[in-house]
């Protein structure tokens, strides 16, 4: 499936898609907080000034304003760094968006450790855990530019609140086109596999695929699942993996608490318990460095995933 080609960042694919869709959809509104450059919104802002609201560095106000606009039946996208949206504006997301039924699309860019060397203030390793506790909030992480395009199109058609987290850097393509890359709430099984399963989301999907290729040379058959929608979770694909393979590894650019791994474990323990390993950032302020350094440090690499897979299979 993957051609491994280095591509454009998901945030760019997101804004390119919005530019295309806004031409025929005057209901699309974009709100940002001095993050035009970070989100890559300059072209959009220049082309659609009437469908663009700049609030300055004020993320609480940003969500409140977005909720107010959404209450007029508009498709409002709030775009800003995930670290600020998921923390500074959390109460506004809870009350003005979720509780008040205003279907704002909260798009957190440069999530996880994208800003690596800028430090913990700029990282969001709690966002998935928090957002998925909000009733009716959908939580999604795209794996590449094509899936981002499909998710963006879907968001312009959906009513409820959504949290989408994207990374900063360009990620290699996982898919070859937007078509078929995203069905809301339905995970993609990218590689069949019968010994062990890896469930990943976002940038970790491509690493999981590469891990399966490494394992193939060791005669280990690993199933690879892209869990792009973390809420609502595709329970069926998880139960099948638990029944048909010996163990499950989850891989996420997030705290090991409350994210993809926890969501998968909640299904596994209640439906069909099998050994699991939750791979992510442990309970510490992450090691300093760029995102690739952080990934390597915590085994969030193809080699790291393959190593963990061997360890898991030895135990079973």
């Amino acid at each position, binding site marked *: 499936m993957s051609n491994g080609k280095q591509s454009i960042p998901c945030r760019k694919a997101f804004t390119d898609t919005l530019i295309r869709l806004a031409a025929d959809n005057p209901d699309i509104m974009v709100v940002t907080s001095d993050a035009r450059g970070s989100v890559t919104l300059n072209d959009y802002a220049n082309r659609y000034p*009437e469908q663009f*609201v700049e*609030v*300055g560095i*004020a993320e*609480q*106000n940003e*969500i*409140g*304003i*977005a*909720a*107010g*606009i*959404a*209450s*007029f*039946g*508009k498709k409002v996208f709030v775009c800003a760094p995930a670290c600020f949206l998921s923390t500074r504006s959390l*109460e*506004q997301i*809870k*009350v*003005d968006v979720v*509780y*008040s*039924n205003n279907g704002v699309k909260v798009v957190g860019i440069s999530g996880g450790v994208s800003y690596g060397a800028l430090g913990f203030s700029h990282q969001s390793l709690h966002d998935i855990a928090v957002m998925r506790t909000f009733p009716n909030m959908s939580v999604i992480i795209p794996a590449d530019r094509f899936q981002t395009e499909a998710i963006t199109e879907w968001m312009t058609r959906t009513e409820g609140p959504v949290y989408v987290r994207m990374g900063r850097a360009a990620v290699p393509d996982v898919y070859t086109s937007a078509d078929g890359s995203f069905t809301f709430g339905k995970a993609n099984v990218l590689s069949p596999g019968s010994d062990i399963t890896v469930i990943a989301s976002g940038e970790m999907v491509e690493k999981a695929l590469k891990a399966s290729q490494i394992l193939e040379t060791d005669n280990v058959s690993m199933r690879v699942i892209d869990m792009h929608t973390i809420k609502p979770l595709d329970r069926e694909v998880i139960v099948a993996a638990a029944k048909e393979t010996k163990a499950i590894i989850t891989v996420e650019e997030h705290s090991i608490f409350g994210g993809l791994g926890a969501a998968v474990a909640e299904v596994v323990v209640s439906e069909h318990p099998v050994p699991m390993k939750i791979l992510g950032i442990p309970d510490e302020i992450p090691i300093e460095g760029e995102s690739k350094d952080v990934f390597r440090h915590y085994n969030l690499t193809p080699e790291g995933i393959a190593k963990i897979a061997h360890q898991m299979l030895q135990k079973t």
Partner: protein
Amino acid sequence: MEKTIFLKKKAAQIRMNLLKMIYQAKSGHTGGALSSVDILTVLYYEVLHVTPENPKDPDRDRFIMSKGHSVEGLYNILADKGFFDPQELNTFSSYKSRLIGHPSVKVPGVELNTGALGHGLSCSVGMALAAKKFNPGVKVYCVMGDGEQAEGSVWEAGMAASNFKLDNLTAIIDRNYLQISGNTEDVMRLDKLAEKWKAFGWDVHEVDGHSIADLVAILKAPPIPDTPKMIIARTTKGKGISYMEDVAKWHHGVPTEEQFNQAMKEIETYIQELDKK
């Protein structure tokens, strides 16, 4: 004059009804509800274009109760205007009731769930922006508390409203000088509140928040073009009930039977005096 008497009487009846509701439920934010009744009465019976038979009319004016804890007056007004059956007021704060202790969008006529302070003005700015773009003619009104002014997000919204030139937005501060822990000037000094809002680019007016005539005049006055309007309404917490006025403990105090009867008597006497005029 006749209109002013009508509104005064209406406000007095709303005071009675909300006290009955709080007394029956044994729960409520009594003091702030009473201080904001005159403001809400003028808004709903004289200013706002809202239609109970079509509560979601896209061209309706929007009202946001940012100080959500003073919901009792709002519920009683919405019921009186026909947004829902007044019988439902008897369910206030009870199991499965949609009439909870802060505004809920489950209640017809309520635009936003509030309760966490410092949110209402931001959402009002969003609504006023959307109105300018999509539903010209729609006006947005937001009532805030004075204690609420300590929330930083209020000032983010204040800056944005003047930046976006929202002359279709009016905010009203229920300036009763009391919050749950005591006088606002002791808890976190607001001091020159009017000057602060002027510095943020608003057209600021200080009025007697219990003067029906003054409230009608300022709320109906046309805005200064491109400028949001701020009304700092000087009010008395617990207004209308002698033993509650200016006493911080009535923020969420519930009257005893004796206190309740006395309150009813005081308002009835007030209404009788109005009838003589």
